[in-house]
C-alpha cells in the first residue's frame, strides 16, 4: 500500500506495463521529452527510448490511425490524446476503424489498444479544454470505456485496459490529477473492466457517478448523512460495458436513483443509466430516476463565475438528492 496521487498512479501503470511488455508503445503529442502536458508520461522517454515513446505530429486522426496499424502488426499501442476536446478529428478512425475491425473481419483481425484521454472541467479550461466525451463513445459497439475516480482504480484499470484484447478508451479526469490522493495496492494489481463499486452503502437513495463527480457525490453523502439521509454512492467506473447488475441491485435496496455527471444532460450518458433503471428496475422505484448533469450549453465557459455555474458540486448534488428523497 502506498499513498499516491491519481496522476502518479497512471504514470506508474504505464511505467510498469512498458517494463513488463516490450510490445507496448506510447504515442501522442508531447509525450516524449516533455513527459506530456500534464506530466503523466514523465520519464518514459528516458527509460524506453523514442521508438517506444513517440512524439507524433499534431494530428489526432494520424495518432489513432497509425496505432491501428501498429496493433495489427504486433505492437500494443497506448495513444494519448492531449485533451478530450481534441479527440474529434480521430472520431472516424475510432468509430469506423478501431471499434469495427474485429467485427467487420469476423474475428480475423483484432485491435488491442488503450487510448488515454484526459478530460473534464473545473480547471479554467473553458469550452475547449474541459470537455467530457463519454456519451459519444458509449454508443460505439466494439469499444470499452473506463473512467477511474481513485488512484487505485486509475492504476488497476489502466493495466486492464492495456492488457485487454480489444480497444479501450481510458478517461482520466484532469482535475483529479493532483487534487486526489489515495492508497494504491502494491504489486501488479489489475482492476477488471466492468464491475462498478459501491463506495458508500446507504438505504435512502442511490447516487450513480464516476470521475470527478464521484468525489462530489461522496461529499454530498456526508452532508446528507448529517441530515439523517443515507445515500448509497456507486462508482460506475466502467462506462462500457455497464454493470447493470450492480446498478439494479443498488436501486432494489434504496428504491431511489440519482444519476450524476459533469457532461451536459441532453443525450448524455446519464440517459442510458436512467433509462435502464426505469425499464429494468421499474418495480423497485419509489421515485423517478433523476438525472443531475451539466447544463446544455456548448462547453464549460471560462470566467470563474460562469465555470462555477456550470460545474456540479457536493451542494448541488445534495440538493438534488433531497428532492429525490422527498418525492
Amino acid at each position, binding site marked *: 500500500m502506498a499513498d499516491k496521487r491519481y496522476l502518479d498512479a497512471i504514470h506508474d501503470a504505464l511505467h510498469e506495463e512498458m517494463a513488463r511488455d516490450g510490445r507496448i*508503445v506510447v504515442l501522442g503529442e508531447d509525450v516524449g521529452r516533455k513527459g506530456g502536458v500534464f506530466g503523466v508520461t514523465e520519464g518514459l522517454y528516458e527509460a524506453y527510448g523514442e*521508438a*517506444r515513446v513517440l512524439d*507524433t*505530429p499534431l*494530428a489526432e*486522426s*494520424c495518432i489513432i*490511425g*497509425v*496505432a*491501428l*496499424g*501498429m*496493433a*495489427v*502488426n*504486433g*505492437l500494443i*499501442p497506448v495513444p494519448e490524446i492531449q485533451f478530450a476536446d481534441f479527440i474529434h*478529428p480521430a472520431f*472516424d*478512425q475510432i468509430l*469506423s*476503424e478501431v471499434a*469495427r*475491425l*474485429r*467485427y*467487420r*473481419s*469476423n*474475428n*480475423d*483481425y*483484432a485491435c488491442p489498444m488503450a487510448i488515454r484521454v484526459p478530460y473534464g472541467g473545473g480547471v479554467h479550461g473553458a469550452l475547449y479544454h474541459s470537455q467530457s466525451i463519454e456519451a459519444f463513445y458509449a454508443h460505439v*459497439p*466494439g469499444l*470499452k470505456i473506463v473512467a477511474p475516480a481513485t488512484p487505485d482504480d486509475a492504476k488497476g484499470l489502466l493495466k486492464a485496459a492495456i492488457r485487454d*484484447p*480489444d480497444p479501450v478508451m481510458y478517461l482520466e479526469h484532469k482535475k483529479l490529477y493532483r487534487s486526489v490522493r489515495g492508497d494504491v495496492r502494491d504489486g501488479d494489481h489489475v482492476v477488471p473492466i*466492468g464491475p462498478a463499486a459501491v463506495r458508500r452503502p446507504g438505504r435512502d437513495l442511490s447516487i450513480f457517478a464516476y470521475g470527478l463527480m464521484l468525489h462530489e457525490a461522496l461529499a454530498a453523502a456526508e452532508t446528507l448523512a448529517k441530515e439523517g439521509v443515507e445515500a448509497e454512492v456507486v462508482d460506475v467506473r*466502467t462506462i*462500457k*460495458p*455497464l*454493470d*447493470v*447488475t450492480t446498478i439494479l441491485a443498488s436501486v432494489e435496496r434504496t428504491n431511489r436513483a440519482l444519476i450524476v455527471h459533469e457532461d451536459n444532460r441532453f443525450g448524455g450518458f446519464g440517459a442510458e443509466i436512467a433509462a*435502464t433503471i426505469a425499464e429494468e428496475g421499474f418495480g423497485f422505484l419509489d421515485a423517478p430516476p433523476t438525472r443531475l448533469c451539466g447544463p446544455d450549453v456548448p462547453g464549460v465557459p471560462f470566467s470563474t463565475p460562469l465555470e462555477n455555474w456550470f460545474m456540479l458540486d457536493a451542494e448541488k448534488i445534495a440538493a438534488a438528492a433531497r428532492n429525490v428523497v422527498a418525492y
Partner: protein
Amino acid sequence: MSVPDIKTESREDVTPKSLGLSDADVLDMYYYLRLARAVDDRMWALQRSGQAAFVISGQGHEGAQVGTVYALNREKDWLVPFYRSVAAVLTKGMPAAEIFLIQLGKAPDPSSGGRQMPGHYGHRHYKILSTSSPVATQVLHAAGIAYAAKVRQTGEIALTELGEGSTSEGDFAEALNFAAIHRLGVIFVVENNGYAISVPLRKQMAVPNVAMRAAGFGMPGVTVDGSHVLHAYAAARDAAARARRGEGPTLLEVMVPRLTAHSSDDRQEKYRTPDDIAHDRARDPVHMFTEELRGWGILTEAREKEILSRIQHEIDIGTEIAEEAALPDPATATRYVYAEPPEPGFRP
C-alpha cells in the same frame, strides 16, 4: 511553381529482360491480369442475374495492381487494399473462389463472413488488411504497420492503394507526413482514373498529378502509366528496394482508365462524354499487355489458350463454390464484437 520529379519510363526501354524478369514471371503476371478481369466480369454477371446486390469493379486498374503487388515479397509484405483491389488481392494470393464468396456475402466469406458489402477485401493469412468503406483511412493503417515492422525489425514493407479522389481526405496527408518523418517502408499507390465517382480531376485538385504532393512531405513522387504492367512493376520494385534500404516511403501514382461505371449503382454516361469513355477503352491494360507479350514473342496462342482455360476453370469452380455456400446464420450476428468469450452480466 516547382516541378516534382515525375519518372515516366517510355515504353521501349522497359522489357522483361531490362527488368530481369523471366518469361515465366511475366506469364504469371499475365495470368493474374486475365484472372482479375475474368473474376470481375463474373462479378457483373452475378449482379445482372440478381445473385449479387452490388458490384464495385477494378476494370482498368488491373495492370497497375498486378505490376505493383508483384514487386512485393508476397508472402512477407503487407497489402492494405481498397474496394477496387480485385487484381491486387488475387496477386497477393487470394483464390478466385474467395472473391465470389465475398461477392455473394456467404458464410465462408473469408473477409467478413458476409458482414461487409462486396469489395471489402481482407485476409490475415495473405497479409491483406481488412478493408472498410471510408476512403483514405487505410493509408494511416499502412503507415502504422510499417512503423511496427521497423520497431520489430521484421523487414516487412506495406503497400497501400487508394484512388486519386481519396487523396483529398486529410488522412492521406497525415499518413504521408508520418511515413516520411520515420522513413517508413510504405508504398503509397494512388490509382488515378480521373474521377471520384462523377467528379473530374480538375474539381478535385489544382495539380495535374497527385505525385506532385510527394515532395512537400519529403518523399519521391513517381507517376507511371498504369496500363503498362511492367512500368508499374518497375516503379514499385524501385520503391520496394528503397523501402527495404530504410530510405523511406514512395508516393507512386499509376494513371489508369476506369472501364466501368463507378459501381453497379452508377450511370457514367450522365457525366462522361462518349469520347472520354472511348479514350479509356483504348487504354485497357489487358489489351495492352497482351499486345506487348505477343510482340516480345512470349505469349504464343497455345500459351494464351492454356492460361485462359485454366482461368475459366477457376472461375467456374469458384462461382460454384460460392453459389453452393450457405448464407450466414443470424445466430452468429452478435459474435466478435469483442474477443470471445465475452464477459457475462454486463451490457452491452
